[in-house]
């Protein structure tokens, strides 16, 4: 009998546990009652249209188009007429069968996409015949469209948010789109607008029951604001064309405002391919491409500026007083101290202007050594630190603050770096002499070089480069973009640099003769960025016209040799196109267009 007793004890105990649990669940704990109320309410999100991006002349760079996803609710599917589907969506019988087969087994209450991003014309046909397709319905989607297919690196793209974004930012819910890279990322908050919500009572299968409180709590979606970019889309397109089949980047800035007129990283990509149906496949192809089309070289790839950096060293020398416009040095083809620095054949001796014209290495080795050994400073360390601060005011070794994501700061060697590299007190001006000619422990982005050209053009100041002019119709962007940034060097010194740059394009023996443009006074400086991994990069900075400059350009063509070779003609074509709308030197243009430098890396 005690077995019966024990079993009764077990039964009663279990019943008791269940009752206690129920008592807590139903009587004590209030949280489930609140959850139940939320459960039955459905928040339907209204998605605002994303802002349109125009160029500086009002031409559309990015707009939205409406497409339709055709969905299938498997449980409502009946009498599928394959032939009808084929003719409606212009698919082959096999394609339709494959799609249906993949969905066929699923028998739950969710819907599955049958066909994504159907064009409006096809959708119209579907609508007409809708009564013949049981279980098919459509969902509206908006997609980005690019009328000119240019500026992939500048505009960026949008994609569905991933979980890390959702976890970080409560605004985004799974399935929302977010701008990735380019303007789409940096102006995400402006472009996206604000989602609206309508609350209704629904059952668990999302079937509508009634609006919650007659819609009093609903909010309307606020459309995203349009942007007016400073990009000149004609120029951008032209530059992209010139840079075809070349690795490198081009940045063109309007010196008087800091507005970026064109920003090209080559190879680039057509932004439209990251918006369409084959997005994933295209994305994978882009990431696998060894030339990294999605990598924005113009702001993310610092390279030694080469001789273009002589402009900065010259100006600092003048400012420090260790150099005067009339200082002359003779050059016998190399700088004879320390490990020595080679130069090339040119007139000798050269004064300041001529040193820019012929890009004399020896001249700047003297100049740089004088800066570092200036008696004003207690030690070389101190002189280097002072020099570095001045360099930074030219916009080097720090982010300029352009309104594009992932801008790289670049580097300029510091005392700390040399102390680590050589050891404290184990280095002297001669061991770091390569800085004189912009080589060695120094790296600048093409944007920074264009900005340097702007500073020279403006004789001492710049505006932070920016790619968006206006938000909406008249709303300004952040205030720092409208403030003059001075580089701290007296205006009068710039005259000499500008003269030197002008001579470089026009003078006898000027290194930038390939940038000579009829009827335009071009001021330019060539550079060769030494590349330990292969052939040197060709660099060129310039602005024009000499008086009242309208455009400053920096060009870097990877693995193409000296600065005068390719970078200079490309830059001159760019500024001529911008200033006159024409090209006078069609032979040069043809030569550049046909030039393929992709496989000449010389590795």
């Amino acid at each position, binding site marked *: *009998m005690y*077995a*019966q007793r*024990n*079993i*009764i004890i*077990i*039964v*009663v105990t*279990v*019943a008791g*546990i*269940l*009752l206690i*649990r*129920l*008592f807590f*669940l*139903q*009587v004590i*704990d209030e*949280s*489930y*009652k609140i*959850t*139940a109320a939320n*459960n*039955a309410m459905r928040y339907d999100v209204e998605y605002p249209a994303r802002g349109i991006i125009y160029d500086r002349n009002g031409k559309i760079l990015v707009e939205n188009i409406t497409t339709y996803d055709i969905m299938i609710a498997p449980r409502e599917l009946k009498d599928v007429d394959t032939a009808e589907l084929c003719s409606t969506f212009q698919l082959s019988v096999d394609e339709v069968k494959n799609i249906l087969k993949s969905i066929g087994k699923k028998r739950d209450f969710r819907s599955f996409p049958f066909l994504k991003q159907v064009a409006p014309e096809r959708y119209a046909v579907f609508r007409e015949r809708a009564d013949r397709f049981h279980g098919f319905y459509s969902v509206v989607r908006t997609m980005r469209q690019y009328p000119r297919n240019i500026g992939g690196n500048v505009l960026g793209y949008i994609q569905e948010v991933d979980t890390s974004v959702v976890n970080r930012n409560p605004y985004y819910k799974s399935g929302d789109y977010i701008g990735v890279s380019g303007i789409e990322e940096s102006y995400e908050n402006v472009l996206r607008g604000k989602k609206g919500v309508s609350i209704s009572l*629904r*059952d*668990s*299968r999302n079937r509508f*029951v009634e609006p919650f409180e007659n819609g009093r709590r609903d909010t309307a979606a606020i459309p995203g604001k349009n942007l007016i970019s400073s990009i000149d889309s004609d120029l951008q397109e032209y530059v992209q064309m010139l840079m075809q089949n070349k690795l490198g980047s081009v940045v063109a800035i309007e010196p008087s405002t800091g507005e970026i007129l064109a920003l090209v990283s080559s190879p680039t990509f057509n932004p439209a391919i990251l918006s369409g149906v084959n997005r994933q496949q295209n994305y994978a192809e882009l990431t696998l491409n060894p030339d990294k089309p999605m990598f924005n070289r113009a702001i993310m790839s610092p390279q030694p500026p080469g001789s273009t950096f002589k402009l900065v060293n010259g100006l600092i020398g003048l400012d420090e007083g260790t150099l005067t416009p009339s200082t002359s040095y003779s050059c016998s083809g190399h700088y004879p101290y320390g490990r020595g620095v080679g130069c090339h054949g040119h007139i000798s001796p050269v004064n300041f202007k001529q040193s820019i014209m012929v890009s004399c290495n020896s001249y700047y080795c003297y100049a740089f050594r004088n800066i570092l050994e200036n008696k004003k400073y207690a030690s070389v360390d101190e002189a280097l630190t002072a020099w570095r601060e001045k360099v930074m005011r030219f916009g080097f070794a720090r982010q300029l603050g352009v309104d594009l994501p992932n801008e790289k700061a670049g580097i300029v060697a510091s005392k700390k770096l040399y102390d680590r590299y050589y050891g404290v007190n184990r280095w002297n001006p001669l061991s770091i002499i390569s800085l004189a000619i912009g080589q060695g422990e120094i790296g600048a982005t093409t944007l920074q070089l264009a900005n340097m050209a702007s500073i020279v053009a403006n004789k001492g100041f710049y505006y932070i480069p920016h790619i968006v002019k206006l938000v909406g119709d008249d709303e300004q962007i952040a205030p720092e973009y409208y403030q003059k940034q001075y580089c701290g060097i007296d205006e009068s010194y710039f005259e000499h640099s500008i003269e030197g740059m002008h001579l470089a394009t026009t003078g006898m023996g000027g290194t930038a003769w390939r940038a000579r443009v009829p009827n335009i006074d071009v001021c330019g400086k060539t550079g060769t960025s030494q590349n330990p991994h292969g052939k040197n990069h060709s660099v060129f900075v310039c602005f024009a016209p000499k008086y009242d400059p309208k455009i400053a350009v920096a060009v870097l063509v990877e693995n193409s040799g000296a600065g005068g070779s390719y970078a200079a003609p490309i830059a001159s074509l760019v500024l001529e196109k911008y200033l006159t709308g024409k090209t006078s030197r069609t032979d040069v243009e043809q030569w550049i267009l046909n030039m393929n430098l992709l496989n000449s890396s010389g590795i």
Partner: protein
Amino acid sequence: MRDRIEFKTPDLLVVLIYLVLVTFGWLNIYSTQSDTLELFDFSKKHGTQFLWAVISIFTAVVVMIISKRFYPVFANHIYIIALSLLILTLMIGTEVKSSKSWLDVGLIRFQPSEIAKFATSLALAKLLNKYGFKLNTIVNWLKTIAVIALPMGLILLQKDWGSALVFMSFILVLYREGMSGWVLTFMAFTIALFIFSLLFPLIWIISGIALIAIAIMWFTYQSKKMFARSTICAIVILVAGIIYKYASGNDVEYDKFVTLAMIAAIIAGGVSLFLWSKKIQWYATVFFFCSTMLVYSVDYVYDNVMKPHHRSRIEDMLGIKEDIKDAGYNTYQSKVAIGSGGFLGKGFLQGTQTKLNFVPEQSTDFIFCTIGEEWGFVGSFAVIALYLTLLIRLLVLAERQKLPFARTYGYCVVSIIFFHFAVNIAMTVGLAPVIGIPLPFVSAGGSSLWSFTVLLFIFLKMDSIYK
């Protein structure tokens, strides 16, 4: 069968509870079918349930009329038919939600595993009450286990875990028929250890086991000196472990040290055991080793034997992973529904959670949600009270049987109903992992209602004759 029709009044209390549960179940099924006002719409769940209730009550009457001798005599035949149906299901069955447990016969569709429950009960009752049969030889044990394991295995092959587990409840019957209570204790302890080792760090569990083992030794050692010897051994090793940890800075797994310490203590004690042999101390030793092995094997079983969805259900139940979307969705919505009912409930037909279909399987396995939501704690209490009364009454009836066959069968009925009742409600309130088994007499589902009716009324028939 030449006997005249022998209908005697069955136990009225049980019949009354049965009718109340069936009616109450039907009302709640009706309530889940929110979008209809039609009382007997046979395309809806409550319509078919009504039909099945009528069929079941008719079957109950037939069961009451059939001769008293039929069941003991034909127990094995019924059992074999049930096994054949299970095999047939494996071959031509219909797959519903990844379990191949349904048999389609023209108009109706039923689960042979439901029939197997009362068929096995009959066979088990017959086997245990054979002349001279006692649960004390290995052969008899094997026979008994075979009777239970055969249908259970076949149902497992259908991948219907829930129904298969029901057969474990026969352990209560075996307990009544002479199985040692230690087996029950052992099982309960195993389950507890399994759950604990998923919930708590290993070191706690091992220390807990060690403490119990020490307690057993303490109360049974004759010589305190010997106990001290063991304890010193244990402490030395523990201290060595701690010193090693701080000296070497390595991460030490404490559970390994506690295990080692206990083993040392037991060996030290074991030497003494040879001198003063005492059985209970062996128990302590065996207890410690078995438990420790079990704890260490939990991880293996858990990670390698169980399927991911089983794991996630268990993790959800134990609150290891709060997961209200996938594995935990059912339980979470079910708790929300029941919890939102409050003390008095939202009232008949007023439940939003079950009505708006948030709770899955709401008319079948999760019918208790509707009860909890619409009838509140009062309703839940009433239902549990009804089951409790039913089970205790059946136990009383079983004990008063003159025929041992009837008594054993009575215990089978109690075990099966108890298991269903306890596990079903426990899973809706999040105390047990979700295994799909219905609430007897209440859940929608024809073959389930019919089979429970037959199961119950066979016993009531025997009771009405043999009391």
